[in-house]
């Protein structure tokens, strides 16, 4: 006898398709509803597993979005060029020159050359501390909107070109130099490491940078005209810069422009002398780090799905044993083994689907709570893809772990089953 062959010969009325598919779902719900507490406990494992996986994936996406936003707030969409120090040269061995800046002007970027040097101030009489002196063009906030003035103003282009003794302070520098006092209007007395003194009139204070990169950008820095540093510093050489920031103009392609900048420096100085990086390349690195973390946490969460699935299998096996007589009766009334198998498979899938749904809802709740309370997570992300994936996986878990119990139910001999006590 070949049951499969025979089944295919039987008229459609008696085949599985003769039964309304919704019928099975209705029966499954009825049977699970009849055992509310047990059904709930059985699907708890799935709830936790789906909850964990969904929350992990979404939190990862939210973290990436948060980091990307923070990074943009601090650095904008910019390209950075600086000499490569890897080969142990001296700081000034490979400066960026005026001609390089001219070449960069052709690209869709704003060219902001900068200069760094160390400077000292007297924290107490006789005690000197270091901070950074940074030379910039005038009107920096207009050139690079990631710099924001908190109080006062930035020195103008005119003041910068004239090399006037004016300064803008970072939030930290203002607090260090003038603790408990308003810095704007004061004169900052600073010393080069060699001992030469400069007195700069403070015209403004910058806002502290926001987000998780706040720490990175909140160093004590005095901003002064490049011209002034060239005029006064014992080490800085006129016409040479340490660093160029190139904020991209609207619509410019970061990768393409980064390659163009690289080509300009390579054609002038050869390979490997200058480091060209963009905020997008930082973001790419961050994204891959988050992705690895997400995969790792997701795998751990997936383990709990496995445990949940085994729980489902266990409860389905118990259910099959308990309902032996019901199975015998259904077979006596004309249910085929296939229909019995289908009934129990669908029951397992309904169980895990309900668990998956609860898990997704829980995750959605947690994500809402986190967005509302943790400042770093600014945007709420629960993508339809994630939800679909979570539900599909829970249905698959039900299908996979339901196969064995359903097969046992289907294989029961009706006579034995009806006699079962």
């Amino acid at each position: 006898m070949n049951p499969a062959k025979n089944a295919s010969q039987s008229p459609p009325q008696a085949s599985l398709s003769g039964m309304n598919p919704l019928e099975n779902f209705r029966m499954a719900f009825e049977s699970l509803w009849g055992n509310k507490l047990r059904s709930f406990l059985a699907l708890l494992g799935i709830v936790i597993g789906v909850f964990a996986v969904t929350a992990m994936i979404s939190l990862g996406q939210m973290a990436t979005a948060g980091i990307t936003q923070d990074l943009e707030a601090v650095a904008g969409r910019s390209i950075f060029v600086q000499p490569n120090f890897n080969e142990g040269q001296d700081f000034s061995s490979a400066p960026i020159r005026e001609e390089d800046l001219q070449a960069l002007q052709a690209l869709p970027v704003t060219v902001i050359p900068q200069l760094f040097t160390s400077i000292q101030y007297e924290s107490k009489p006789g005690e000197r501390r270091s901070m950074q002196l940074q030379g910039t063009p005038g009107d920096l906030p207009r050139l690079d909107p990631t710099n924001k003035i908190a109080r006062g103003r930035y020195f103008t282009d005119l003041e910068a070109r004239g090399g006037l003794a004016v300064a803008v302070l970072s939030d930290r520098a203002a607090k260090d130099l003038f603790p408990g006092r308003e810095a704007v209007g004061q004169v900052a007395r600073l010393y080069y490491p060699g001992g030469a003194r400069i007195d700069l009139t403070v015209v403004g204070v910058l806002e502290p940078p926001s987000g998780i990169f706040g720490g990175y950008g909140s160093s004590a820095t005095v901003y002064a005209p490049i011209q002034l540093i060239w005029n006064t510093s014992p080490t800085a050489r006129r016409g040479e810069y340490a660093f160029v920031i190139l904020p991209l103009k609207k619509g410019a392609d970061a990768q393409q422009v980064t390659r163009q900048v690289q080509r300009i420096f390579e054609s002038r100085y050869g390979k490997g002398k200058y480091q060209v990086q963009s905020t997008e390349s930082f973001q790419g690195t961050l994204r891959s780090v988050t992705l690895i973390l997400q995969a790792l946490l997701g795998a751990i969460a997936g383990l709990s799905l496995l445990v949940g699935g085994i729980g489902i299998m266990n409860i389905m096996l118990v259910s099959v044993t308990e309902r032996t007589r019901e199975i015998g009766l259904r077979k006596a009334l004309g249910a085929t083994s296939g229909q019995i198998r289908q009934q129990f498979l669908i029951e397992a899938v309904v169980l895990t689907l309900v668990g998956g749904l609860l898990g997704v809802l829980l995750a959605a709740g947690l994500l809402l709570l986190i967005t509302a309370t943790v400042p770093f997570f600014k945007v709420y992300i629960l993508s339809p893809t994630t939800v679909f994936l979570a539900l599909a996986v829970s249905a698959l878990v039900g299908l996979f772990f339901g196969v064995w119990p359903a097969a046992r139910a289907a294989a029961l001999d009706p006579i034995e089953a009806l006699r079962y006590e």
Partner: protein
Amino acid sequence: MTPVVQMQGVTKVYRSGSGSRTVEVHALRGVDLTIGAGEYVALMGPSGSGKSTLMHIIGLLDSPTEGEYSLGGEPVRGLGEAQLARVRNQRVGFVFQAFFLLPRLTALHNVALPLVYRGVPVAERLKRAKKALESVGLGDRLDHLPSELSGGQKQRVAIARALVQEPDLLLADEPTGNLDSKSSDEIMALFDALHRQGKTIVVVTHEPDVGARAQRIVRLRDGKVAEGSMA
């Protein structure tokens, strides 16, 4: 007219163990049996006589080791599991000693259950189930759960569940075994009424007064029909 049950030389051998230790039990040793449409037959015999095995074979829950069996003119030899289920669903209405009602379903839904496996739409199913319940005098108990019914009422629900199938054969296994005498009388009266309506009924019993209600008694002894194999 085609007999409902036609058996020739039906044997059933159960084997247990393996190799040289194989034990063979001959439950049926060549049964010839014919039951015509509209007959009311009691299947009797001491325990171990093979009457349960015969009932299972008649009801297609088991198949003969040898011999020919046709149910409603349809030979069952060589039918697969799914086809046997279909024939069972369409031709045999079971009534069990222990009722076997699903405890979480109302009387109406219990009765409608066999039609689920025929793919009858819900509304139609419930309509037919209601009619069947009314025909056994339980039109006012449609929404009761089995736990809310008396033993006699439960068995009447089970009979309605068999009737809803419109089977060729009503196959009752000790239908009064779990009932008090008053309920037993009720059920037996119901079988009498169904017989008068032309239903074909086979009752398996060891109780003489139940057997006495039937038109014909088929007695089994040692796996053979000792009496009443033909009308």
